[in-house]
């Protein structure tokens, strides 16, 4: 009986990381009017659109940060609330990173059936964003635990 309990405990510990789903997609950088339709799906959550808002200059005066960002739209088409995390990394033709950042759920959950957008800032590595050729999107999902 004790062995069964230990096995059950070990099983649940091993199962815990499986709650977090993950998917990665690589795309050519081909926005139209700043936006591009893509598809990266994990646990019925889909990153379906990305809008690029790039500035290759820093702020005014002594401010060095840029207001460059991407806005990512995520749809929860599943039947379970999810916490999501999204990373976007842009590369030039030589494989150098020209922009990178992460965004996702701040508070609570992306409720089942809901759609939301996340803004991902690219404030500090931005000076070569106009040389972007490809980008990678990784989507992380984690189901709301059943209470």
């Amino acid at each position: 009986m004790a062995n069964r309990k230990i096995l059950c405990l070990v099983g649940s510990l091993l199962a815990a990381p499986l709650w977090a789903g993950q998917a990665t997609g690589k795309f050519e950088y081909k926005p139209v009017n700043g936006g591009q339709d893509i598809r990266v799906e994990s646990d019925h959550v889909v990153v379906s659109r990305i809008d690029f808002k790039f500035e290759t200059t820093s702020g005014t005066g002594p401010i060095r940060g840029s207001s460059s960002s991407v806005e990512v739209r995520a749809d929860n088409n599943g039947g379970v609330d999810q916490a999501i995390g999204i990373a976007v990394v842009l590369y030039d033709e030589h494989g150098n990173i020209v922009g990178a950042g992460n965004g996702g759920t701040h508070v609570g959950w992306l409720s089942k059936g809901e759609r939301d957008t996340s803004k991902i800032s690219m404030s500090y590595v931005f000076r070569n964003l106009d040389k972007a050729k490809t980008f990678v999107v990784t989507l992380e999902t984690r189901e709301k635990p059943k209470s």
Partner: protein
Amino acid sequence: MRKAAVGFVVLAWASSMLAAEAVTQKFDWNPVNGIQEVHVEGSRVVVAQLKFDLGGTLSSTPIRRSSAKVVARVDNNGWLDQEVGIAVVVFDEEGNVVAAGSGGTKWGYLNKGDRDTYTIDFPYLYRRFDHAKTFLVTLETKEKAGKQKPAPKPTLTPSP
């Protein structure tokens, strides 16, 4: 005279474009107590050390943010003040991103001869940070523009 002026403008534009430099290097994930020595150099500015923190979340609260981050130590070994930008992207063995972000100079410059640290936060994509296998570091630098000398005042020649 007009050609010379056009040439000067083109030269000034080209030199301003050349002033921004970017270098990217890939490393195996091998930190000791969270710290890994690296060497990514551009314009005599060096990213010399990264201190990774896998962070944590406030469980049993609705806040989903993590405190995961990396602190990059940067040395300006050159003779010019520089703007600095650093991107760190961490991958698992299948090439999925497990952490990504950028940091750098917020205000002013990293002065010549100075050392500074820049924190890059990974608040939203962190759940598989412990699967890290490799990482990329990109260093972007842009030197401080030289001071423009004021044009010399015209010399008055006595009228005959």
